[in-house]
């Protein structure tokens, strides 16, 4: 455990700093917007139900959904910190507005009426009566909103916003508990620390709000300085100069390995600074991100690009697929598609080897008779895509007793081995297949298009840094199916860190 912390200490600090930046920026903005809005509806109560209603709806929308919606929004959206902060702000608004409103509304009306009757202007009433008497309730709203933000900020990693969620997503994708905890424990600690310290402040305000107007100035200043110093310290320690190249990846082990290969190849062949945004939430997010230049490049599969992005009907000629992808990506998206890295990672319809032996199954057609008794498990992309479940079921006439379970890619193989599911759509280069005694069914009707791994880069960035093209071009055809499987296995099963596996592989090919 200690070795782990030693190795990852710098990264943990970096992501903790990112996490704090996300939460603090969002909270500052939300407070600036939310508290005045709360004050506004105490003055104009006819708008109260409208404002509170909207804030309530915003909070009811599941956080992942808001992140997803924001991806397509111009300016505020996309991936990275900005949309993450926007989503956090939307989430923090309800407690802030509502507590400000309630805090002021529940002040004894006799007090407020007296204030008015004695000739206080509305501003004087607000500052000398409303806010001091409502301060404990308002602060309670700040506390709730901040603790919620700390939790939701972990999801920011799915859209490349950084933060401690990076560890959590990576840990889930590579089935690595230590990584998950490296993200979960610090976030929990931050949430607890915020809750505790703001709770203390709230208690003091509650005792004093009915008595004293001024919190002792000196202690308030000291608290403020200490907190800012701690936050600034963490942020500073984790801070790194802005990267010139950002490599992204999708949310499973092979993608992280390939992304790391791209990153290390660029680092060792050029002077550029490379940042990694791995475990992004899927093909769509990566595609939008590389188009917008928010990542410089990632590794895509030709079949996926062909059917899911270009929305073509699947065909099996791999050269034709590659040419069309290369041409259309250049024309429509200004993206450069590099030559294949060498292997073909097709969807592998996988079952347990014992079932294959028992029922004498070699192809998917063979299996079609037995699936009615089986439970299938698929990743969400496979379920959604045109070249996925729907087409497969139609082509082979597959029927299942129950609808397929939607699962995380990293967990599917274990689930199959443990008999929680009976059939999965894995990928053919996965390292766990031989180890867990699983069997890949032959795609006898050639339903799946070829999925050759190709690096995809944003052309504008390549023009700016032509040395990147040269470095990536060297990787052409270097990874065989077996080598990919071996690397996947090393990371998934032997738990060797991705960076080490990639470094060794690059060395073995004298790159």
């Amino acid at each position, binding site marked *: 455990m200690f070795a782990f912390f030693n190795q990852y200490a710098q990264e943990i600090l970096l992501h903790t700093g990112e996490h704090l930046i996300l939460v603090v920026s969002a909270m500052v903005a939300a407070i600036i917007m939310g508290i005045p809005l709360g004050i506004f509806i105490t003055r104009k109560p006819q708008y109260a139900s409208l404002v509170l209603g909207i804030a309530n709806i915003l909070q009811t929308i599941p956080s992942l959904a808001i992140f997803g919606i924001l991806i397509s929004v111009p300016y505020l959206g996309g991936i990275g910190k900005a949309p993450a902060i926007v989503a956090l702000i939307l989430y923090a608004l309800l407690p802030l507005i509502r507590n400000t409103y309630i805090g002021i509304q529940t002040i*004894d009306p*006799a*007090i407020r*009426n*007296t*204030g*008015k*009757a*004695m*000739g*206080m*202007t509305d501003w*004087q009433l607000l500052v*000398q*009566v409303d806010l*001091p*008497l409502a301060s404990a309730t308002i602060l309670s709203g700040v506390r709730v909103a901040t603790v919620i933000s700390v939790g939701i900020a972990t999801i920011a990693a799915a859209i490349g916003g950084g933060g401690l969620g990076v560890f959590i997503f990576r840990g889930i994708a590579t089935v690595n508990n230590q990584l998950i905890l490296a993200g979960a424990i610090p976030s929990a600690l931050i949430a607890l620390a915020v809750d505790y310290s703001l709770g203390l402040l709230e208690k003091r305000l509650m005792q*004093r*709000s*009915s*008595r*004293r*107007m001024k919190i002792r100035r000196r202690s308030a200043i000291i608290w403020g300085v200490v907190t800012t110093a701690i936050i600034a310290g963490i942020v500073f320690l984790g801070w790194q100069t802005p990267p010139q190249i950002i490599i992204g990846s999708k949310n499973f082990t092979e993608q992280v390995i390939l992304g790391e290969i791209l990153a290390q190849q660029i680092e060792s062949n050029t002077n550029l600074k490379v940042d990694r945004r791995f475990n992004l939430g899927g093909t769509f997010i990566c595609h939008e991100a590389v188009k917008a230049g928010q990542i410089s490049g990632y590794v895509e599969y030709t079949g996926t690009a062909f059917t899911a992005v270009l929305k073509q009907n699947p065909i099996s000629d791999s050269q034709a697929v590659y040419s069309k992808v290369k041409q259309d990506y250049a024309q429509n998206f200004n993206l450069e598609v590099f030559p294949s890295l060498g292997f073909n990672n097709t969807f592998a319809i996988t079952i347990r080897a014992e079932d294959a032996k028992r029922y004498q199954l070699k192809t998917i057609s063979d299996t079609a008779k037995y699936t009615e008794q089986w439970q299938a498990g698929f990743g969400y992309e496979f379920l959604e895509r045109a070249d996925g479940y729907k087409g497969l079921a139609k082509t082979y006439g597959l029927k299942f007793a129950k609808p397929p379970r939607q699962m995380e890619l990293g967990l599917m193989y274990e689930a199959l081995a443990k008999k929680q599911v009976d059939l999965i759509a894995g990928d053919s280069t996965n390292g766990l297949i031989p180890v867990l005694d699983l069997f890949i069914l032959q795609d006898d009707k050639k339903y799946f298009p070829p999925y050759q791994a190709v690096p995809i880069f944003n052309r504008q960035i390549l023009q700016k840094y032509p040395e990147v093209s040269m470095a990536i071009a060297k990787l052409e055809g270097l990874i065989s199916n077996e080598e990919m499987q071996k690397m996947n296995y090393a990371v998934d099963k032997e738990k060797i860190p991705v960076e080490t596996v990639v470094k060794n592989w690059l060395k073995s090919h004298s790159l």
Partner: protein
Amino acid sequence: MFESQNVSVEFSDVSFDINHRNILSRLNIRIQEGEVLTLLGRSGSGKTTVLKLINHLIQPTKGEVLIGGRTTTRWNEIELRRNIGYVIQETGLFPHFNVSQNIGLVPSLQKWTKPKIESRVREMLELVGLDSKLFGQRYPDELSGGQRQRVGVARALAADPPILIMDEPFAALDPITRLELQQQFRALQRMLGKTVIFVTHDIQEAFYLGNRIGLMHEGKLVTLGTRDEFLKSSHPEARAFIACLDYPT
């Protein structure tokens, strides 16, 4: 703000409706400078509404309210309110201000200098019979009901307003404290000469404190006169109140 310290309050044919309900109808009253007018009436007879029209918390639907000869709509309402002392039954003291800060409220709104405010607060506490050293730093939740109301009166008088409006200020106190405060208030008013409009539902109090007594019934002023004139009134509402005098209080 007012040229002299003696200010009159006048209601000229004032009516007040809210949500299509008529609360006050055709009120005509002229309160002399330095006079105490007690407004008597049942709950819901419109007495509190009369007070709110004086400090412009509400505006008449018809007619005019004139303070010092000028109609309320032509006074700056913030200035007007700072020059009218306000005492209510619940006291409405700010719980997060101590006694000195409560009393010094209007002076500080008027931006008096700190030493001037401090000396005025001491003066007011003395006026209402509270030791300033003992009570100055206390908070309202540390005071008894009677002490709180004394602070309320001190607060109303702090900026030396020519007019005081009071809404059943002593109703929530025990009878001994109530009598004490009534006596002290009467002496105070005689000394200071403020124009006072005092709302009450207690006929004893109305007689004791008022130069004249006005009886409100269902939004109308049904009698207005001195104690003797009131006792001679034949209006059924007046007779009803007078009957209560015979009962032990």
